[in-house]
C-alpha cells in the first residue's frame, strides 16, 4: 500500500494479532459482494465465491453472497446463481434506486448491511464498480482494505492473509488487517478460478431493508452509453490468446500476431510497452496493469516475461514462449519454449496451425 513500512518493525505488530477487541468478536462469516450491473453479474463475483468458499470452509463459517439491485428477474437470477456457485445464504437489498450503480446509495446500503450482520471477511471484485464502492465502504467502517489481491488464505489463528503485488509488481506482500473488522479485500477479475456450478444448490435469502430516498440522492444518471460490441475485447475470457512484445520490433510486425490470432479464432494482446507505443489499444494489454487472462493456450512472442507480465498470464494452462534469448525470464514459467526469431516463426506457425486444424487434415487422420 502507500508508503509500505519496512518489514522489520511490522513483524512485532503482526505478533499482536490476537488482541481483537471484544466488539469485533461478533464478526463472523465470509461475504462476497455480487456485482450486478445493468441486469448482468460480473463473472468476478463467481470467482470470488469460489475463493470465499475455501476461506469459509477453513474457518468453519458460512459463505454469503451480497446482492443489491432493483426488484425483478435479474436480481432473483443473481441470487439463485450465487447459491449455484457456493453461497450458503444471500443478503438481498432490493430497491428501484439500486437499478444502476451509484456510489451514494450503494455505499450507504452496503455499510448498513455490514454494521447489522457483521461479516469477518468481505470480498469485492477490483472492477471500476468494486473499487469505487470498496474504498468508500472501508473508510466509513474505518477498517482495512487490501487492493488487487492475487491470493487469499486463512492463517493458523484465523486471520485473513491477503497477498498482492507490491513495488510495481516486482515483489509480493502479504497483508493483514489487525484488530479491525471486517477484513476487506478486492481481487481482480480472472485471478481466481471460476468454481464449478452446481445447478441443484440452494440457500437462504435474507432480505435487508435500507431506507433509500431518491430525493436525497444527489447524483443522477442522465444516461448510459453501452460500449459498442465491436470495441469490446474478450481477452480476459478467451480460450486461446496470442501476444507479442517489443521483440517484434515494429508495429508492422505486430500484424503477424493478429494473423495467427485470426487463423486460430483467438484473441490477441501484448506487453505494456506496446500499448505505450500505441501499437495496440490499452484494453489489449496483458499483465498487472492490464488484463489478467486464463486461456487454455497462451502464445507469447518476443516478450521477456517481466513479473508484471507474468502475474497476468500465470493462470494459463499452457504457455508457449518464443524468444531469441534463451535466458529470458519467460522461460522460467512457460511450459513450452523455443529459442528462435519470432518474426520468422510466426508466419510458419500460422500456416502449420491452419493445416493441422483444417477439417481436411483431420478427416485424413480419422480415415
Amino acid at each position: 500500500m502507500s508508503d509500505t513500512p519496512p518489514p522489520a518493525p511490522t513483524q512485532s505488530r503482526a505478533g499482536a494479532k490476537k488482541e481483537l477487541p471484544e466488539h469485533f468478536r461478533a464478526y463472523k462469516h465470509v461475504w462476497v459482494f455480487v456485482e450486478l450491473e445493468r441486469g448482468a453479474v460480473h463473472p468476478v463475483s463467481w470467482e470470488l465465491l469460489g475463493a470465499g468458499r475455501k476461506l469459509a470452509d477453513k474457518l468453519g463459517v458460512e459463505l454469503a453472497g451480497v446482492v443489491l439491485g432493483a426488484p425483478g428477474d435479474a436480481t432473483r437470477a443473481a441470487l439463485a446463481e450465487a447459491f449455484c456457485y457456493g453461497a450458503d445464504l444471500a443478503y438481498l437489498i432490493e430497491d428501484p434506486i439500486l437499478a444502476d450503480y451509484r456510489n451514494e446509495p450503494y455505499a450507504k446500503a452496503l455499510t448498513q448491511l455490514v454494521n447489522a450482520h457483521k461479516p469477518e471477511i468481505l470480498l469485492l471484485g477490483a472492477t471500476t464498480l468494486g473499487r469505487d464502492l470498496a474504498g468508500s465502504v472501508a473508510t466509513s467502517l474505518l477498517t482495512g482494505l487490501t487492493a488487487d489481491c492475487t491470493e487469499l488464505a486463512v492463517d493458523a489463528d484465523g486471520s485473513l492473509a491477503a497477498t498482492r503485488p507490491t513495488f510495481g509488481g516486482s515483489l509480493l506482500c502479504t497483508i493483514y488487517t489487525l484488530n479491525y473488522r471486517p477484513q476487506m479485500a478486492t481481487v481482480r477479475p480472472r485471478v481466481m478460478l471460476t468454481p464449478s456450478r452446481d445447478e441443484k444448490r440452494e440457500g437462504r435469502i435474507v432480505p435487508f431493508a435500507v431506507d433509500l430516498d431518491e430525493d436525497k440522492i444527489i447524483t443522477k444518471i442522465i444516461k448510459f452509453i453501452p460500449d459498442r460490441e465491436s470495441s469490446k475485447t474478450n481477452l480476459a475470457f478467451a480460450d486461446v490468446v496470442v501476444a507479442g512484445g517489443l521483440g517484434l520490433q515494429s508495429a508492422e510486425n505486430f500484424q503477424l500476431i493478429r494473423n495467427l490470432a485470426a487463423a486460430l479464432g483467438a484473441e490477441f494482446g501484448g506487453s505494456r510497452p506496446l500499448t505505450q507505443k500505441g501499437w495496440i489499444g490499452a484494453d489489449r494489454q496483458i499483465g498487472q496493469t492490464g488484463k489478467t487472462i486464463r486461456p487454455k493456450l497462451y502464445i507469447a512472442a518476443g516478450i521477456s516475461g517481466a513479473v508484471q507480465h507474468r502475474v497476468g498470464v500465470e493462470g494459463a494452462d499452457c504457455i508457449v514462449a518464443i524468444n531469441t534469448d534463451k535466458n529470458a525470464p519467460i522461460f522460467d514459467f512457460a511450459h513450452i519454449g523455443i529459442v528462435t526469431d519470432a518474426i520468422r516463426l510466426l508466419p510458419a506457425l500460422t500456416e502449420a496451425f491452419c493445416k493441422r486444424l483444417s477439417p481436411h487434415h483431420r478427416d485424413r487422420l480419422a480415415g
Partner: protein
Amino acid sequence: MKILVCIKQVPDSAQIRVHPVTNTIMRQGVPTIINPYDLFSLEEALRLRDRFGGEVSVLTMGPPMAAESLRKALAIGADRAILLTDRFFAGSDTLATTYALAQAIRKVERDYGAQDIVFAGKQTIDGDTAQVGPGIAKRLDLLQLTYVAKIEACDPEKREIVVERRAEGGVQVLATRLPCLITMLEGANEVRRGAIDDSLRAARAEIVTWSAKDAEIEDISKCGLRGSPTIVKKVFAPTPRSERAAFVEPATSGGDSAEAVIGAIFARQPSLEEDMAKLARGF
C-alpha cells in the same frame, strides 16, 4: 473556482530494482516522478481554472523531497503548493493517508477558502490501490466521481457538474453537485507542458509546508503506522516454478520448427486439438 489536486511523488517504478540477495528494494538513485495518473487530474483542474477563473492548489503528503514534485506541478501551472510532511505519517496505509489528507484539506479550506472540486489520481503506480480518492471523499462527505473520462459541463454558479464516467461495459453520464471529488481516467486529456513564466515562478515559489501540528491534525494515533489497520507482514519474491520450459529445438526451416512446436503443445494438452479445431472454424 477553487480546486485542489492531490498528487503523490512516486518512484519511477519501471526502474525499481530488487536486491538479488537480500530481496530488499534498492531505492537509492531511483528517480521520482509525479504519479502519472495525477497529471490527468491536474490538467483537468487547470482547464477548469482557465475557463472559470480561480486557483488550483496542489497537495501532497510525503517526505520533504516530495517538494520537488510540487514544484513540477507549479511549473505545469498550479497556483499554490502544499506539502504535508511529518514523521508521524510514516507507514500510513490508505485509511491513515485519507485521514491525514482530509484533515489537511480542511485546513486548506480554513486558510484559503472552500474548495469546489478536489481531484485525485485514478490510482498510484506504487500503491496502486485506487482507494485514496474514494477515502478522501468519504471523510469529507464529498460526492464522488471516479474514472471520469470527460467533464461535459460545469456550472460553478449553479453548483452543477456533468461527467462521463467509465463503468463496466459502458459509460455513465452523471450529473451531480459541487463540491465533489473527481478522479480522471488516463488519456482523458493531453497534459500541458507549462509556460516559461510558470517554470520561472515555480523555481522561486514558496512551498507551504505543514507538519501534523501546523495542519492542526490533533489525533496522531490515526496517522502513520499506528493509524493503519492493515500491516504488511511479509514481502517476498514470486516463487519460481520448479521446472523451466520444455525446449523445442528449432529446425532449419520455419515450417518444421512450427510443426515441432504444435506437436509439443498437443502432446502436452491433447484435448486442446479438438477445442482449437472448433475455435478455428468459428465455433
